[in-house]
């Protein structure tokens, strides 16, 4: 088989997001921030979100270190939820984590994920699922814990 199977994981769009990540910067002002680590590999994501008065994501940015999959997933996630309201973003996070665990969703839900839907290919690489979900976990935690003190762990 060799590396040909890798093409299904490292699709061009995934490599493009990893090489040119969207929204990879910390926000000057934010309402929700979180730092999450993947303890098995040491990958880190710092996510900052700015919610407006209507609870819509007015701005979002991330920083940190990680593999191709975690970086591109974070890039695609920020692209997908920009401008969405909090409730929609949380629903998308649920769709994403269901999708990579193999739970079926209506096509409309998957379409909502944008480029991120392509990461369903991660299912064939169980060891890498955590890499793909880290950014979406961070989104979920950041949105649900907006009033709690933010988790400012040292990177």
């Amino acid at each position, binding site marked *: *088989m*060799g*590396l040909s*199977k*890798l*093409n299904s*994981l*490292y*699709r*061009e769009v995934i*490599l493009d997001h990893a090489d040119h990540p969207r929204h990879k910067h910390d926000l000057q002002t934010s309402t929700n921030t979180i730092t999450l680590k993947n303890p*098995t*590999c*040491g*990958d*880190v994501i710092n996510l900052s979100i700015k919610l407006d008065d209507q609870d819509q994501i007015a701005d979002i940015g991330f920083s940190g*270190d*990680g*593999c*191709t*999959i975690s970086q591109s997933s974070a890039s695609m996630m920020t692209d997908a939820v920009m401008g969405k309201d909090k409730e929609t973003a949380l629903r998308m996070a649920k769709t994403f984590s269901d999708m990579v665990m193999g739970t079926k969703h209506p096509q409309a839900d998957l379409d909502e994920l944008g480029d991120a839907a392509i990461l369903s290919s991660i299912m064939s*690489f169980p*060891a*890498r699922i955590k*890499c793909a979900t880290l950014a979406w976990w961070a989104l979920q935690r950041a949105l649900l814990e907006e009033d709690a003190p933010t988790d400012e762990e040292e990177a």
Partner: protein
Amino acid sequence: MAAKNLDVRQDFPILDQKVNDEQLVYLDNAATAQRPTAVTDSLVHFYQTDNANVHRGVHTLAERATEDYENARRKVQKFINAAEPEEVIFTKGTTDGLNLVASTYGEANIQAGDEIVISIMEHHSNLIPWQQLAIKKHATLKYIGLTADGELDMADAAAQITDKTKIVAIAHASNVMGVINPLAELAKLAHQHGAIIVGDGAQAAPHVPVDVQALDVDFYAFSGHKMMGPTGIGALYGKRALLEAMPPYQYGGEMIDFVHQQDSTWAQLPYKFEAGTQNIAGAVGLGTAVDYLTSVGMTNVEAHEQAIVDYLLPKLVADPDLEVYGPHDPAKHTGVIAFNVKGIHPHDIATALDMEGVAVRAGHHCAQPLMTYLGLVATARASFYLYNTQQDADRLLVALAETKEFFNHGAVKA
């Protein structure tokens, strides 16, 4: 130098399989080794023939199981050249053994203001028990640093170990830097200052001859599963006088002498430290692994792995796209080789190598302070054992070249 292969492959049926349609090359031995048929057979034989609880029964099976269990202890004793079998305590593994020492000897002997000295290359299992002990006792945890070459800095060791030091705990071999640390020299240094020394043998006992008396270590912990024994079994060596003076680790059956309503007295060594029904079959399997390694000969195991390192390491070091950690002199490097490929995250490397059938580890290797010290997030790691061959090293080299090609030249471009 060409690595002369040991004639052992046929003893490891797990190696004879395809992974992702490629012949498996197993290079994650620092995480866990594979077991020869002799070891798995001995587990089946024990359960199907001799199984009973040990020491308490008067029936025949109990006697046989006890004999099997104590035979295994004597095999381990000889393997590490302990003076007597009572100095060998069966544990769950290295982590369990190190925690035992920290929570018994450490608990009884560390006081506020004392120092505990470890190194920056320690695995979390030889770091956190001491860190937490230091916090609890208001003691100071000190770290010995590394030389530019990635070896333990012995000048720094001489500076860190002082008359305030009560415990020195050091890996005999590193699971990241690929070095063997001069444990005998460190033991001498510790003893000169009135400290005891604890050796973490997890990465050494499977690969090099170990003589705890020659090393003059006070404690030495290692795991069965990294030396081809079952998981969930390991051993802790301790000098008799220290073990005698230590309080028990856990309380319960097997470890008592007499139990009264308000107090109890403890069993003799080693049973004082073996509360509850132990991993009897695991001990038997470990004994068989010891027999296997002894029949191959630990000096042969060491020489075989060294020959692979002599062949492979210079090729890895010569690759400008690779960063190899630890000494670049093969004579100073073990078969644990941590590396990074420029521009490619180690997790992506490990997935790509897996597609080529080559199993390696990627991550922080349970050594986060070391990663921080080296300014790294993670590394890839290939680790070799007696059943690996020079052909395995070649497969790694080819798979690495293809991986670089894939990620750097966009093999995915349709």
